[in-house]
């Protein structure tokens, strides 16, 4: 496929050492863009920059070249605290269908409810 370079016969894929993720350069920032007024900021990707001000400038150039946004947030990636995405955190909701309006049978005659 187009930008996927196949291994030439006899070649080995390069070794990757993920145990030492060394960052020598600028820190990583996550970028959030508000597409237009009235909408929340949405995560669009990340970039490297030496400081917050430069990160915002770079986010403008990198992620909003076609007026995709009216506002940008940048957050140091290292500062983000994430859930453990194993399902266990969310499973308890699945046996509580009564939290949803569709759980209740209401006769049509009652009208809008």
């Amino acid at each position, binding site marked *: 496929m*187009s930008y996927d370079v*196949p291994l*030439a016969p006899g070649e080995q894929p*390069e070794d*990757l050492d993920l145990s030492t993720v060394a960052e020598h350069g600028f820190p990583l920032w996550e970028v959030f863009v508000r597409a237009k007024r009235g909408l929340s900021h949405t995560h669009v990707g990340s970039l490297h920059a*030496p*400081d917050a001000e430069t990160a915002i400038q770079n986010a403008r*150039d990198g992620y909003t070249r076609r007026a995709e946004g009216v506002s940008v947030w940048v957050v140091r990636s290292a500062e983000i605290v994430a859930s453990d995405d194993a399902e266990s955190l969310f499973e308890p909701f699945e046996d509580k269908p009564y939290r949803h309006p569709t759980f209740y049978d209401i006769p049509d005659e009652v009208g809008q409810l």
Partner: protein
Amino acid sequence: MSEHAGRARFAAIIEADEKVEPRDWMPDEYRANLIRQMAQHAHSEVIGMQPEANWITRAPTLMRKAILIAKVQDEAGHGLYLYSAAETLGVSRDELQEMLHSGRQKYSSIFNYPTLSWADVGAIGWLVDGAAIVNQIVLQGTSYGPYSRAMVKICKEESFHARQGYSIMMALVEGSDEQKAMAQDAIDRWWWPALMMFGPHDAESSHSERSMAWKIKRIKNDDLRQMFVDQTVPQAHYLGLTIPDPDLEFDEETGHWRIGEIDWDEFWRTIKGDGPLNRERIAHKVKAWEDGRWVREAATEYARKQRARLGKSA
């Protein structure tokens, strides 16, 4: 989550056509395979700026120049989206860049061909971006979430690339005999390399099958190539250009254009580093990185001082 549960969950996600996300458990080979493919893709976007940037100062009009700058800037953006997506897999940007500079990781061979005339800028947008689009549209359905999202964003920007290229070709074929000849010369040189962008026949592609099973890859090389040929041949005819393939013919039965055999020796030669410009492209990239060192150092120092100052006043 135990590895056993993780493996089961990963299999279920792939089976259900859902997306794998960065913090999910995934097989080491899936991770390595993705890092490799996304890094090559990112490197290609970045190195891909060179052949076109070569013509920015010589664009025939101010409008074409502005368009070309915007296009090349988009490619830098594409590199950013893809590096950003690759970094979610635990590889650092520095390491990826080092692997490009040292030649341990590759980029698409298409960018090792020279841009000899302004018509080449048209041919690249039309054929090279055109081939990339066929590939990238399908990759929107890839199983790794950040890669898929990067593809969605890239696809939104790519059609401008192909259309501005085709519009350059249209202007040339409507021009003087000399300009028409330039357009023909460009397709003569770019047609086969563009077809090679889809990679070897699937039977000869070692990773193809596993990538399909993991849904990293969704359509086979030869099928993607055929999609590109079918959409592009009529576009060449519309321009009144001849496709440099004496065996090209329309198969009434299948409704597809049949092409002659690709020169696989040239393909592998270029991949192994003996293409026309392999060395120059990397040398130029490394030089740009080295030339920018003082800027990065100054920016880092400025940021450090700003932090120190804020720390004091707070």
